[in-house]
């Protein structure tokens, strides 16, 4: 059991996990101010409830689950976004896979921001936490079918927003046609 007490030292906790927590928070909230608030909240919660951390090796995973919980709570205050407009779409997979540096960070965030909260969490767990669909289902206590459905639709939406313009340009269509909706 990795109950390494030094991992719970506040300074060390922050030094080791702050960047990852902030980045995750930023991807979920879409704003630097909200991400900072959420990050503060996560570390305060960690400080208050450090007795819940039984295995220091899993501290980051625990912090992420606190983060998701805080974010979901803030999402629940709003009405859910109808899921009907997020379609499964593999046609958005680019013919020429991009490099990470080719991806416009601002557009990526805009695409994430357009997703309803629950879709955002699932796609962030997939890309950011590198969770499998089974782990996502387990951690969020959701049916596997729901996770797969959300994941596929959310990923399709991100790609459509990120690459549709390039795909259409390659196909000889005017770039403006591919501008994101809404």
């Amino acid at each position, binding site marked *: 059991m990795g*109950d390494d*007490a*030094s991992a*719970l*030292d*506040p300074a060390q906790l*922050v030094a080791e996990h*702050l960047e990852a927590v*902030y*980045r995750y928070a930023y991807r979920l909230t879409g704003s*630097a101010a909200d991400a*900072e608030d959420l*990050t*503060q909240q996560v*570390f*305060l919660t960690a*400080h*208050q*409830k*450090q*007795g819940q951390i039984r295995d*220091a090796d899993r501290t980051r995973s625990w912090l992420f689950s606190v983060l998701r919980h805080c974010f*979901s709570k803030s999402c*629940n*205050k709003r009405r*859910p976004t*109808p*899921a*009907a407009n997020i379609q*499964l779409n*593999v046609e958005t*997979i*680019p*013919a020429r896979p*991009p*490099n*990470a540096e080719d*991806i416009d*960070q601002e557009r*990526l965030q805009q695409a994430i921001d357009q997703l309803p909260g*629950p879709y955002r969490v699932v796609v*962030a767990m*997939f*890309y*950011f936490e*590198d969770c*499998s669909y*089974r782990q996502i289902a387990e951690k969020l206590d959701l*049916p596997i*079918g*729901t996770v*797969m*459905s*959300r*994941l*596929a639709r959310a*990923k*399709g939406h991100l*790609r459509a927003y*990120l690459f549709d313009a390039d795909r259409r340009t390659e196909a000889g269509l005017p770039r403006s046609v591919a501008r994101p909706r809404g």
Partner: protein
Amino acid sequence: MESSPIRDPRILEALEACRPGSEDIRDPAMEPLARQLGVFPELAALYERLQQTDRAIAEAFRGVPVPAGLAARVLTQMAAAPAPLDQLLSVPPPGASPGIADSGQAGTESLASPSASAPSPTLREDTPPMRADRRGWRRRGWLFASGALVVAASVLVAVFLNSPKPDRVSTEEVLNKAIAFFNNDARDSGTPLGFGPAPPAGYPLSPALPTRTCQVRWRWVDGFLDLRGVAYDFKAPGGISATVYVVKRPLSGLGSSPPGVPMLATGMRATAVWQEGDLVYILVVEGESREYERFFQELATGPVT
């Protein structure tokens, strides 16, 4: 010859669920996808392109600059925060023998480093020496306070268990639970409306769901959102099946009628929830958004051709 799987939503969802560079494809649940990949080269090419694209997106996902000074701000907040809960609880009563305190708190002590306890110095301060009789009184006082706390907690639990369930679940949780319940529900056991006993007056069917054009059965359901309620099973003229669950549960922020589009559509189930007075109606339609919309059209006008 097998038809192309690229239009099959189940295969496409499985394709999307495989993390780049992982062994996810070997998961037994991915077996249909793995089989199709061996048969359809265009699907295999799509899989490869998706893996590469996901790798790039995952890397981009983590590319967020962190604001300068954030660590200092977070640490300042933590230092100003109250003491950790487990430390407050782990403070032994004055006069208690160190042996008892040590053995009782072994689990949490290993996690609370000395520096982590910095915000609660007053609780860690040494207390002045006390006379033996005062220590005895303090010990009894502590035991009495602990007993009172246990009694108060039991009363609170009893009150909670006997009161209506509070608004603890989110709308989305309700919708997901409705889908899970619907998937395991015996929907052919109800009494047809207009034949046999009438449904209970306390759980009427919503006027937003006219029954003129379709067959409807009602039945009691137990355990839906941990409550007893009534389910109305619809068979619309075009063949669409749906169930609306009616329960008494306080939920906030709901509309007063079913929305025109589902609030959640997933796994071939489209759902919505609304509230009329003290009743919550949760509708689950078999199918996706299209079936949900058709269901309402058929309720209003008969089969859509």
